[in-house]
């Protein structure tokens, strides 16, 4: 693990990207799959345009974050914007379970088959 001050060149970069907001949309999981509903448009915030470009095919939030070199929280904010504008759709993972509850056995069986076929 690295632990260091956020070194992003301009220290205000993240502030600018998010317009100073820090409330991220928690509905977005690391593995929520994002799909663009429209092409980027001239005059859009460049990060928004980049996301629409990257998500022509379903793409997990964490892959977009890695590609754009932005922290997860910032991605959640940007994706919340795009969702509110109707420019993306989100395919969420199975809903969180209560603590200690296990995933559905049918789903686990599907995962097992997938792994065995690798």
């Amino acid at each position, binding site marked *: 693990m690295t*632990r260091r001050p956020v070194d992003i060149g301009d220290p205000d970069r993240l502030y600018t990207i998010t317009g100073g907001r*820090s409330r991220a949309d928690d509905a977005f999981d690391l*593995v929520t*799959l994002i799909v663009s509903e429209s092409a980027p448009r001239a005059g859009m915030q460049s990060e928004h345009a980049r996301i629409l470009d990257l998500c022509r095919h379903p793409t997990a939030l964490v892959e977009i974050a890695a590609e754009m070199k932005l922290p997860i929280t910032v991605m959640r904010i940007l994706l919340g914007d795009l969702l509110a504008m109707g420019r993306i759709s989100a395919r969420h993972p199975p809903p969180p379970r209560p603590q200690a509850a296990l995933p559905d056995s049918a789903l686990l069986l599907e995962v097992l088959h997938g792994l065995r076929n690798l």
Partner: protein
Amino acid sequence: MGSATSDLPSLRTPLSDAAEAGLKIVIVGGFGVGKTTLVRSVSEIRPLNTEELMTQAGVGVDETRQVATKTTTTVAFDFGRISLNKRLVLYLFGAPGQERFWFLWDRLFSGTLGAVVLVDTRRMDESWYAIDRLEHHKTPFVVAVNRFDDEPDRYSLDEIRQALCLPAHVPLVDCDARVRSSGKGVLITLVDHLYEMAMAQEMTL
């Protein structure tokens, strides 16, 4: 971190348009225990690196401007992916086992199917904390011993189970994180274990 491997595509490979749901498995372990190696050996993409913000207090990002303050630190983790079928895609996360990382556990890994604790017998004590935290978060897990060539004494799995105070019901296996079939075996051990537990739970409902 990740050295380039020639057999994995270096360009982004998109998922199938039919991909519906992402699933998570987390690989936890101390420094240099082989997390990235394991992710790489089973992933269909070159492992990617990303990070999350964390305030000094470890509470997360909340107050205005916290996002860009100088006291904000980052926690980095890497991941790979396996397309299980047209609908399901499994993401594997390599997560450092140190204390401050656990502040982010719920924010990053809630809903995870389960975890693999990767153990290096030369530094077994580092696994204790991870096991304790997983129990605390009620995340089911298996333990995989990544065997290195220069291990001083080759401990048996029984000895390792004792040293880790690992209950009998938690699967413990050997692996070589560099070998794809071995990494795949570890994942199957985990999901098998989850499946058995899920079946038992469903029977009692």
